[in-house]
């Protein structure tokens, strides 16, 4: 799998530093599961975290801290192994869903589009989206940033072509009309902050009815 589109360094850093909302953290974790390059970069970021921890000016604990902890030492955990996924669902996504991607119960949005909303908090929403080959989403802009990771298939828009593992950052100023590639269904995980604004009035009504 050749991944050509990656999250920005600052986004990866925020993930590694632990300053991220759960939705963006899941999309990052999903990309990391698919992208060896970003995994290596994230390991370097963690290494910087480790070096900062090592170099931190120690702050003494209460005098009884060690005794309290020693008194609580129990049996160590056995090594935990993530079970391999039957259909290649990235582990963080599978953990969030509670099942494999192939068991998702899609809600229909017209004959060729499906979606499931996985998370919503304020203006932030995370969804799985599924488009039949060749489906057009429709010309739209974003009220805020939209992150997308391709899980299956691929799509193209004005900014390029996105295949499995690719991470698209669509900022508020991008107007695009993603079209699912021919071949297989395109399945994406997307996080939007602020919702979509379609060019077509009908689509805007539909979108608002469905909570997009």
């Amino acid at each position, binding site marked *: 799998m050749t991944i050509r589109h990656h999250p920005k*360094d*600052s986004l990866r*850093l*925020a993930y*590694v*530093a*632990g*300053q991220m909302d*759960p939705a963006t*953290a*899941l999309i990052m*974790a*999903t990309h*990391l*599961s698919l992208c*060896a390059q970003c*995994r290596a970069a994230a*390991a*370097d970021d*963690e*290494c*910087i*975290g*480790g*070096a*900062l*921890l*090592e*170099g*931190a*000016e*120690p*702050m*003494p*604990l*209460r005098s009884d*801290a*060690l005794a*309290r*902890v*020693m008194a*609580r*030492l*129990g049996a*160590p*955990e*056995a*090594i*935990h*192994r*993530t079970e*391999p*996924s039957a259909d*290649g669902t*990235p*582990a*963080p996504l599978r*953990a*969030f869903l509670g099942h494999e991607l192939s068991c998702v119960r899609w809600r229909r949005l017209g004959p060729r589009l499906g979606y499931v909303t996985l998370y919503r908090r304020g203006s932030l929403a995370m969804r799985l989206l599924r488009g039949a080959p060749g489906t057009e989403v429709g010309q739209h802009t974003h009220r805020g940033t939209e992150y997308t990771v391709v899980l299956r298939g691929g799509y193209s828009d004005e900014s390029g072509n996105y295949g499995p593992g690719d991470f698209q950052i669509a900022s508020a100023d991008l107007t695009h009309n993603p079209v699912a590639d021919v071949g297989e269904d395109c399945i994406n995980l997307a996080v939007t902050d602020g919702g979509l604004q379609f060019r077509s009035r009908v689509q805007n009504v539909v979108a608002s009815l469905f909570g997009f």
Partner: protein
Amino acid sequence: MLRRVAAFQDRQAFQELFAHFAPRIKAYLVRGGTASQQAEDLAQEAMLAVWRKAAQFDSNRASAATWIFTIARNLRIDMHRRERHPRFDPADPFFMPDSPDPADSALQTRQREHQLRKAIQALPPDQFRIVMLSFFSEKPHSQIAAELDIPLGTVKSRIRLAMMRLKTLLGDES
């Protein structure tokens, strides 16, 4: 030492680890804005997690300090969020093929981190401060900018500069 803890459930080794890391974890949390009492409790919890999870530590992948950083970070995230927080499992069999396997990678990891530590200390103070804050603070960059009374763009460019410097150094080492 961590490996002694893992292999033999060595309490003596654990005490030494505790003496070294617990006060650093507390410092990491307090500098990030956690209240002192909570940082104290969390540092103890983090060390308990180190004991519990010691078997998962892989010295080829990360140094003890890096691994313990991730444990403390995860506990801090969990403390603040009632929702479960997604994170990826570096031991996921899905991507085992690209994990490092040479026998000397543990040594390389240690050398890398040693170099990094020196490089971090050599950063200009304004860059050092921002890197420290961006790793340790619970606050988003916008809030860091407000507190330091500098524009958000400056925060971002300082982080970028500092990270580039550190990464160049890491790149040179590998």
